[in-house]
């Protein structure tokens, strides 16, 4: 079975600083992959490279059979053209840490904007689909509210619905709970769990180890721009083989002593 997302030798430098030092990643259809690691390890950069919000300086990325970028024989990089890129992006859903909802539009308007403009869906169909999506994230009553009238947890759920409205093949989640008050994190994770149970292919960059343990199929630990360890969730999180992985997990868990039962 070919992978839905295939990354080979991904490199990314910002100015003189090399953030990603050549990493590989494969995600199969229906799989949930969590990426964990310390700040500055490059986790967010990977996601942003996956839909070319950042342009890799090396390597090859293919999503759903389409090539986003590759290295030419002479060493230069070739990126998908602007039109091709827009096509590919329809199949990739990205949820941001800062939600990035359009503040001057209601929740409903946020969700229908892209399907109408990009996929040519007519307004009534788009609204119907949007209401269904809002229902599925538990916000049916909030359709006509504006982002600033909602809590962080609610805004993020609208953001997820907005990405889902484009019916993507894969969903990317960039630390989507980090900017949200702790008591609101659960409602977001619940939505993501439902999505996973429905078979959505998901790539999740997260600090939430419990979520990673419960919902992911595989976990990838990154440090300093390279993949340190990768494998089934239970193994990487429960019985990590690499010393650095163990060190990181210990440091994370020391911050939340109540999670001991998750060992």
């Amino acid at each position, binding site marked *: 079975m070919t992978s839905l997302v295939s990354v080979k030798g991904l490199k990314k430098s910002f100015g003189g600083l090399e953030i990603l030092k050549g990493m590989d990643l494969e995600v199969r259809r229906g799989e949930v992959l969590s990426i964990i690691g310390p700040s500055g390890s490059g986790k967010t950069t990977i996601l942003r490279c996956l*839909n070319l919000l950042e342009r890799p300086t090396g390597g090859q990325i293919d999503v759903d059979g389409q090539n986003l970028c590759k290295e030419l024989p002479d060493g230069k990089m070739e990126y998908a053209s602007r039109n091709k890129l827009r096509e590919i992006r329809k199949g990739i859903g990205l949820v941001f840490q800062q939600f990035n909802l359009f503040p001057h539009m209601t929740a409903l308007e946020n969700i229908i904007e892209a399907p109408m403009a990009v996929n040519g869906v007519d307004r009534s169909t788009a609204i119907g689909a949007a209401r269904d999506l809002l229902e599925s994230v538990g916000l049916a009553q909030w359709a006509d509210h504006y982002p*600033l009238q909602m809590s962080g947890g609610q805004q993020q759920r609208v953001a997820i619905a907005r990405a889902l409205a484009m019916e993507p093949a894969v969903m990317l989640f960039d630390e989507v709970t980090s900017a949200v008050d702790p008591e609101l994190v659960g409602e977001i994770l619940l939505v993501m769990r439902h999505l996973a149970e429905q078979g959505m292919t998901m790539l999740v960059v997260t600090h939430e180890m419990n979520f990673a343990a419960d919902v992911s199929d595989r976990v990838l630990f990154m440090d300093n721009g390279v993949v340190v360890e990768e494998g089934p969730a239970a193994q990487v999180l429960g019985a990590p083989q690499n010393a650095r992985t163990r060190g990181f997990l210990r440091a994370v868990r020391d911050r939340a002593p109540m999670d001991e039962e998750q060992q």
Partner: protein
Amino acid sequence: MSSWDWSIIQRCWPLMRDAAWVSINLFAWSLVLATGLGLVLALMRMSSFRALRWLSALYVLVFRGLPALVILFFAYFWVGRNLNLSPFQSGVIGLSVAAGAYKAEIIRAGLLAVGRGQYEASEALGLSKSHSLRRIIIPQGIRVMIPNYMSNATLLLKSTSLASVIGITELTGRARQLANSTYKPIEILTAAGVIYLALTTVLTVSQEILERRFRLKT
């Protein structure tokens, strides 16, 4: 100090009122043209073509570095004479060209103030650049720009007074004429001042209304 003469104001009022309308006319035309020019320049500044970016930056640098009066002289003596324009038309051109440079910066700052995340979210959803500019960025940019835009518009209103120097009979020019011919400069000039204050107050109130209309609902 001799006593205040109300009757002179009464008698001169029709002349001053008509001149005030000329000022308002100059202002309206120049505002529209300057805004259009500013929008074009701001978009040029965000273009992917380096030549357009440079041209826009150069325009702003030059026309913000020159006194408005000098720009008006260029418009009247050079452009106006060569193209056979009326003084009013030259005046509008001069004022618009000068104000356009400021509008360009105001519009650009407004568009930049819209957080990067909005651009990225639009891109990630597959929206085209023109669509996201039109539906996402510019509406939010307008909200940010309103204060600066309106204060610049107020400046534009006041700069219409310069048109008197190239022979247009707007309010300030008329006031000077009357002040000299009636030997009552205090009354006339004060009356002119009051009219200007009324006009700028209208603009200030408009600003309040616009800010309220564009406020984000929390």
